């Protein structure tokens, strides 16, 4: 990450799509949340949604206010946002997923991370899409960012360094 790059932070339930040269789109310290990254190489547009929970049916009002909060409404809203950037076909989009960490819980009572991953995959399938790369699960938090210039996606995790997805 270079210092002169403009940074757009995507908070819980946030969605952001950009074509601004030099910008990076970033989401911090994902625990059980998922960073859904989509890149449209032809249109040179890049976007991210910060998904918090699997399904919008638990609170439709919230889904209307903040569609990015849930996997189903969030992926739909991210796709719609790309339409504003001339991305007319989902086939123009490359998808990557990161996050969905699991707490160290032997009884798996609180495993919302895994359910978030499954809900994201399901929402993508409904749109005839699938992620070409995933960095999900495990019991560690991740910070994820994507560069608008290159479409490259990076992940960092405390104590684990940085890698490209």
């Amino acid at each position, binding site marked *: 990450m270079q210092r002169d790059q403009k940074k757009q932070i995507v908070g*819980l339930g946030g969605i952001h799509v950009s074509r601004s040269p030099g910008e990076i789109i970033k989401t911090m*310290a994902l625990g059980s*949340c998922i960073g859904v990254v989509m890149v449209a190489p032809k249109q040179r547009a890049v976007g991210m949604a910060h998904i918090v*929970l699997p*399904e919008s049916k638990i609170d439709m009002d919230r889904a209307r206010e903040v569609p990015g909060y849930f996997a189903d409404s969030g992926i739909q809203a991210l796709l719609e946002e790309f339409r504003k950037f001339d991305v007319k076909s989902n086939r123009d989009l490359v998808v990557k997923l990161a996050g969905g960490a699991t*707490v*160290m819980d032997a*009884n798996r009572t*609180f495993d919302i991370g895994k359910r978030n991953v499954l809900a994201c995959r399901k929402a993508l399938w409904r749109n005839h899409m699938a992620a070409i790369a995933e960095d999900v699960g495990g019991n560690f938090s991740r910070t994820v960012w994507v560069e608008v210039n290159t479409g490259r996606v990076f992940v960092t995790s405390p104590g684990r360094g940085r890698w490209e997805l």
Partner: protein
Amino acid sequence: MSRYKVKAIKHIKSMPPLSRATLGITRMIADENYNIADLVRLIETDITLAGRCLQSINSPLYGLKSRVETINRAVVLLGARNIAAMALQTGLSTVFKMNLEGYDSDQEDLWRNGLRTAIASRKIMIELMDDKKLADTAYATGLMHDIGKVVTAEFLREKSKQFVESAYIENEGNFLAAEDALFGINHTVIGEHIAKNWHLPESFAAVMRYHHTPSEAPEEYRSLAVSVHLGDTFSMMAGTGTYLDSMDYPVDPIVDHYIKRDAAWNTITFPKLLLDIDKEYQDALQLSGESGGSDV
């Protein structure tokens, strides 16, 4: 006694004491059946605290029609429990805005983690553990549970990253065990010492000590420790941890004996609980003067 234990004791003794009013509020909350007049009197004896409480109450976010000039009126409008929680937050805010550099943490992370854990612990106590009486204590102890990190952050800052990483790997990603291996003491034991040094109620010291290991807590404080243990876990899941150690604490299996789960736990009850915690947290962040969501 290890070098780090000696340093920890020295550090704890040098920490500024809590104000009389803040300490008094923790005792009232722990006492459960406090008197409203005593609460009002206590806040009013601390001019700074009273002023800051009134400033918060009069913020447009509360949407009150007329200006509130007295703590007494604030209690009538918002309820004693809300005012006690607000006064406690206000009284502690400067202590909690310390930088946890050793955890690679941002300035506000300890505060945000405390606030989300407080809200989550209270909700867990009411909704999953059916104990309204302990709800306010769960909130207050949740707010303060990680204060011991102020000291371990200093220890971590002195260690090379490589050294910390290898201790973390050797202890299979359990950060509490890594702290023990590195320093012979961890942030929960230090937290308990701080609570005692500040003369906080016993329940507070117990939560600081056992919030990662509630099964080891004395029986009378175990349910409280369970609520904060889970509150802290949910907080880290939402990305509101203190960075270096986020998600690195195992869930104590004893929690399953304390919480009630229905048939819709996985699909509705649990996600809805996390959503409600987040809504309340975002509102509380706004009221405490932050915009919230952007970098959580």
